């Protein structure tokens, strides 16, 4: 669908999409809340109505007629709830939820310039219309002309519409509004040009005109105000009813609901809670979050803190600058230099922390999609589940947050499908029929822990072992320890599910979950009690942009090995080295046989081979296997900032990125898993199987 838009409108369109997606999340939360509670909370209904109304108006102003139409049908139904004419039955609410999906789909399609099904849209609108059939019609759609019902009497209204000068800047066009008004009845209009300056002083972006006149027809005050709803904050509007005998009954001056058509860009950052009239702080748009790039909203106080840090940095820098002077550095100046450098280090550290915090967002953004998921899935599986969420304010880096979504979805699906039992089974076991699923997040040490807890039937250890034996993962007499058991659960293709549903059971999910989490530098833990429930904990680092690294030297070059991958480092004892099949060196470390690897050789960098006599071996874990990297020297352990190698060059197998060392030189960060793969590949090529 191609829209004819001005540049300004196109800019605003982006904002419209962002806000609409946020609004849809609020709408969804509100609808789910209405479903859960026995009495319909008028506050929630109002909030939900407002969102539909905003989307309708916004879509209309951009000419997105279809979206506006769907929003209008939903708004009509919601208005019925609001007026008390209709009650929010589960069916009506489900229908509205379908509407939310429809709107979301259409918004995404429009944003991505794809098409969508007009037919299914039409059917959905029909069903919504049917559901609102009993409510008193509130015809206020910008796109649909409707003749007022015959039963109404004719009324006359006098109005004055004076847009504020910046009205045009929010993409509103008074002429369109006046045309709307003309559709409601017989319109007599006069323009007020008093504010119009001369041509030289005229600024085309500003609105200088005003209008006044009368409207006669079978209209209500509300309908007239509806026309101007979208510009409420940006214009002066007075509508008064002219009664037959000439007396004038003044109606309200400004409409009571104050909705800002264009919300301010930066706002305070509380967790996204339903019912807030202002848009929640962080980008909640699902599509955007998954796109990876895009924008983030930042709380103003975070920016203020940053400004302070930078201010202090500037002061420190000028202090150090002052120390530069003629003559040799005497003891006094050296002392002050040292002080200054210490101060600089502290400033830099604070600045670093502040900036990192800019990118951190509350996990609530990811948690937000689960109420809907659990609701739909529960219905689908015939299970009654209550979702509890705790710690949605816990913040983590945007990069980690984006990758958290899919693993969590897998885990929640598993819990619902295999963890929580059907109501009858629960009753028989003496448990409440309503199952509980908890999503929890909290900080611990330098990590963030995210837990998925259910009070279902737990994981039966004996069945796991039996299945593992069936699949050949375990020998017939092997009794696995705790760690081994965990590894089995996360093994690719492993599943104790008796049947594969389209939700889970294929045994694909857990393996992927663990891999994803590990690639984020974290790990997964399982804690289960048969009959009582299961808790799955994801432990993740707070950020991906900075890692703890061990610098190593091979030849003249330094590389960084992520500290997390290092198992231990040993001085190579030549007597523990054996030649395997004439080509590969194997090291006997206690009772383990570790393949030794020359980094230069594996990476294909020309350089000195590290001879076994002078080497240190850094044992790393790559995809569950241990590999020994031969290096010349262990250098410092430090935090390194991950720099992209890909942006100017490309991806290199075996390298996770680059970093700039203290002396300004570039060093590569090793991707231990990639190195493992390279090693296996080169072994395969040489016709040798790695031990």
């Amino acid at each position, binding site marked *: 669908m191609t829209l004819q838009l001005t540049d300004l409108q196109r800019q605003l369109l982006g904002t419209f999409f962002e806000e609409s997606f946020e609004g849809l999340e609020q709408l969804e939360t509100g609808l789910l809340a209405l479903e859960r509670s026995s009495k319909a909370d008028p506050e929630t209904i109002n909030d939900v109505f407002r969102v539909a109304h905003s989307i309708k108006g916004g879509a209309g102003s951009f000419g997105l007629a279809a979206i506006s139409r769907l929003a209008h049908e939903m708004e009509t139904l919601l208005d019925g709830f609001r007026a008390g004419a209709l009650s929010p039955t589960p069916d009506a609410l489900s229908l509205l939820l379908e509407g939310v999906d429809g709107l979301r789909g259409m918004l995404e399609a429009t944003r991505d310039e794809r098409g969508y099904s007009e037919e299914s849209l039409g059917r959905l609108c029909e069903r919504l219309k049917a559901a609102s059939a009993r409510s008193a019609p509130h015809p206020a759609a910008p796109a649909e002309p409707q003749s007022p019902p015959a039963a109404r009497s004719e009324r006359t209204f006098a109005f004055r519409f004076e847009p504020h000068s910046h009205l045009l800047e929010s993409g509103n066009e008074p002429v369109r509004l006046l045309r709307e008004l003309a559709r409601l009845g017989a319109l007599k209009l006069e323009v007020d040009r008093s504010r119009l300056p001369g041509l030289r002083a005229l600024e085309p972006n500003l609105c200088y005109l005003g209008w006044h006149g009368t409207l006669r027809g079978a209209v209500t005050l509300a309908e007239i105000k509806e026309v101007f709803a979208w510009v409420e904050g940006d214009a002066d509007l007075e509508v008064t009813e002219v009664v037959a005998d000439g007396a004038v009954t003044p109606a309200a001056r400004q409409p009571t609901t104050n909705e800002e058509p264009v919300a301010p860009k930066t706002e305070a950052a509380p967790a996204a809670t339903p019912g807030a009239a202002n848009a929640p702080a962080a980008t909640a748009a699902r599509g955007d979050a998954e796109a990876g790039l895009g924008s983030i909203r930042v709380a103003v106080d975070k920016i203020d803190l940053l400004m302070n840090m930078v201010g202090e940095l500037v002061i420190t820098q000028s202090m150090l600058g002052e120390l530069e002077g003629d003559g040799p550095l005497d003891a006094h100046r050296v002392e002050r230099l040292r002080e200054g450098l210490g101060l600089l280090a502290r400033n830099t550290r604070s600045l670093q922390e502040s900036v990192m915090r800019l990118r951190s967002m509350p996990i609530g953004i990811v948690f937000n999609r689960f109420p809907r998921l659990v609701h739909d899935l529960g219905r689908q599986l015939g299970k009654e589940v209550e979702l509890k969420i705790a710690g949605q304010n816990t913040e983590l880096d945007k990069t980690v947050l984006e990758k958290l979504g899919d693993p969590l979805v897998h885990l929640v699906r598993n819990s619902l499908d295999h963890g929580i039992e059907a109501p009858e089974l629960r009753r028989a076991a003496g448990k409440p029929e309503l199952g509980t699923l908890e999503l929890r997040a909290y900080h611990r040490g330098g990590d963030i822990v995210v837990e998925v807890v259910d009070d279902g039937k737990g994981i039966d250890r004996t069945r796991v072992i039996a299945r593992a034996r069936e699949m050949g993962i375990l020998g017939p007499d092997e009794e696995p320890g705790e760690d081994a058991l965990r590894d089995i659960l996360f093994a690719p293709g492993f599943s104790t599910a008796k049947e594969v549903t389209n939700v889970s059971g294929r045994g694909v999910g857990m393996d992927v979950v663990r891999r994803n989490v590990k690639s984020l530098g974290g790990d997964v833990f399982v804690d289960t009690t048969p009959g009582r429930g299961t808790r799955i904990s994801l432990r993740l680092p707070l950020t991906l942009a900075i890692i703890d690294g061990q610098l190593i030297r091979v030849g003249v*070059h330094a590389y960084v090995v992520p500290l997390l991958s290092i198992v231990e480092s040993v001085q190579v004892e030549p007597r523990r080295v054996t030649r395997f099949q004439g080509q590969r060196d194997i090291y006997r470390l206690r009772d383990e046989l570790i393949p030794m690897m020359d980094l230069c050789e594996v*990476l294909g*960098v020309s350089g000195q081979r590290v001879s076994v006599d002078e080497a240190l071996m850094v044992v790393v874990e790559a995809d569950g296997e241990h590999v020994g990297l031969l290096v010349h020297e262990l250098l410092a352990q430090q935090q390194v900032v991950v720099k992209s190698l890909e*942006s*100017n*060059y490309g991806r*290199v*197998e075996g390298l996770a990125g*680059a970093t700039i060392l203290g002396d300004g030189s570039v060093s590569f960060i090793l991707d231990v898993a990639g190195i493992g793969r390279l090693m296996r590949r080169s072994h395969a090529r040489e016709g040798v199987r790695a031990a």
Partner: protein
Amino acid sequence: MTSGTAKNAAESEQLLTFIVDGQEYGVDILRVQEIRGWSAPMPIPQAPAYIKGVINIRGDVVPIADLRERLGLPTLPYGQTTVVIVLRVLGGARERVMGVIVDAMSDVTNVPTGAVKAPPSFHDSSEPSPARGIAMLEEKMITILDVDRIFGEHVVIR
């Protein structure tokens, strides 16, 4: 910022010219980010031979390529007098920054569009010509390099 628009829109284009093996080459001046001296790059594993490694330019990791090697000429040793031109190159629909090693800088020259002729292919191999045109000026000829073609797509990984 793209050379394409400059070429079509203006009647002349401005080139930064430099010398490689006695020949004068030029690139669209709008593509030039800066000119630097030599600093030893960190070699990239499994990189094509003409890519010598990466260096740090104000916090960015920038690959350095030897133009001599890329053109199939014997290389010179690198040192104090080596010149590196840092270019903005279009590779795979994305703009990248790359440093290119040349023998010496020459000049900034305005070349009228009419003076640019299509290049003969002076490489007999299957590789497309690295030049996008030859500027015939009164005193000399400048081979205008198509930097995107030469450096934009480099072989990355097995």
